[in-house]
């Protein structure tokens, strides 16, 4: 092979696309799992327990969960590294701006980089809040997500950070899914309409599904 995949801008985009799809699949599962909060504390707390016994008895306690975590960390690192390196290349390739500027691309397209940074920062806060409990506003209790979630969304900043991040996620997925499909060579003149529609549906469903939880706590549906 004359060059490795990582040496090529198209190859790096492939890494970004595949890692993005891995995270997207995880997010769909995560969003569906979150909605268990609307069935009461029993349901979601049991679900949290199941996440740790997944794959048993073949897999030891928490092995499946750690496997998912490792895959996710690898995906985040691959996604962020390729995004950083490709962005550096892109910015270098257009050193002088036009005097007469025109914004012609969509909002989702223009905010991919900042949106990605917002999401990266959000993930750090989110893990410190609801996985380790380090910055949790209430008395964090391991394996009791129902109360932990209510505590987080009982603070104004918890709601603001979460909702901003979820909206950023919606925009990121809208352009990201479509972009990944093109990078992986799925796009064509006949398929592009379907791909754009799937991207829009995914973006809206993920946004609504995730936002439902803080809205549920704020409106008292979950208490």
């Amino acid at each position, binding site marked *: *092979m004359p060059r490795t995949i990582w040496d090529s801008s198209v190859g790096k985009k492939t890494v970004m696309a595949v890692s993005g799809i891995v995270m997207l699949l995880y997010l769909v599962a995560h969003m569906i799992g979150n909605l268990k909060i609307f069935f009461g504390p029993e349901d979601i707390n049991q679900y949290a327990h199941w996440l740790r016994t997944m794959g048993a008895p073949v897999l030891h306690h928490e092995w499946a969960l750690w496997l998912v975590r490792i895959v996710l960390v690898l995906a985040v690192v691959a996604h962020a590294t390729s995004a950083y390196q490709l962005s550096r290349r892109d910015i270098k390739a257009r050193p002088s701006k*036009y005097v007469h500027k025109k914004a012609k691309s969509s909002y989702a397209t223009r905010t991919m980089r900042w949106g990605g940074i917002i999401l990266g920062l959000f993930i750090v806060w989110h893990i410190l809040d609801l996985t380790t409990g380090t910055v949790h506003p209430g008395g964090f209790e391991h394996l009791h997500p129902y109360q932990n979630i209510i505590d987080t969304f009982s603070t104004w900043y918890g709601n603001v950070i979460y909702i901003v991040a979820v909206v950023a996620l919606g925009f990121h997925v809208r352009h990201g899914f479509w972009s990944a499909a093109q990078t992986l060579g799925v796009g064509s003149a006949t398929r592009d309409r379907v791909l754009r529609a799937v991207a829009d549906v995914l973006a809206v469903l993920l946004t609504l599904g995730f936002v439902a939880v803080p809205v549920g706590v704020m409106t008292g549906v979950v208490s």
Partner: protein
Amino acid sequence: MKLTLRVWRQKNADADGGMSTYEVDGISQDMSFLEMLDTLNEELILRGDDPVAFDHDCREGICGACSLVINGDAHGPERTTTCQLHMRSFRDGDTIDIEPWRAAAFPVVKDLVVDRSAFDRIIQAGGYVSVPTGAAPEAHATPVPKADADAAFEHAECIGCGACVAACPNGSAMLFTSAKVNHLNVLPQGAPERETRVLDMVGQMDDEGFGGCTLTGECATACPKGIPLPSIAAMNREWLRATRKVSRG
């Protein structure tokens, strides 16, 4: 028509450039944009000033030499080449901004002229078919399905003007390279070099300092020949296929 032009002036590749303002009068609606610039240059020469340098050749919309960003649009407001843009697309009293293509891989030579030889080197890397010399082959010896011939022709329409690079916020040459790769890769004549062509041309594109594709779609909107955005997905498909094939040996 009377117009105010704000034109990018730059003495040479190393000098700093800037926008200069000129007034032109007596412009007919039937003039092409380049004829309007000719009028300006005639006045500048009579005044003893340095005329504005800009690229042009066939003035028929087929050679790909003309290259101006007009009011922020590559080739101006109509979907055609600058030479086929007419002054009826503007109104009396308009102020028009005229800038060169902007990309690290297209350095400014002078005023509105940029060096597009990076495109030539991408073509040299694989934008050809190797054919044995001799008598012309029998036309029916290699049948080409109609759909493939149409796809090849659609991509062959690329005139290599560089509007895609100029319009792209990343200064990416993906649309140009994909047009050239797809044009030959769909044809049986291009098949023997199908893998090396896409790998070498993408490699050269990267080496020239073009940016990557973020699927903003601005290239396909600016393309005077209507090379479609799915071209890029088709090239990515070719690249992935070639990478798999080459790594398998």
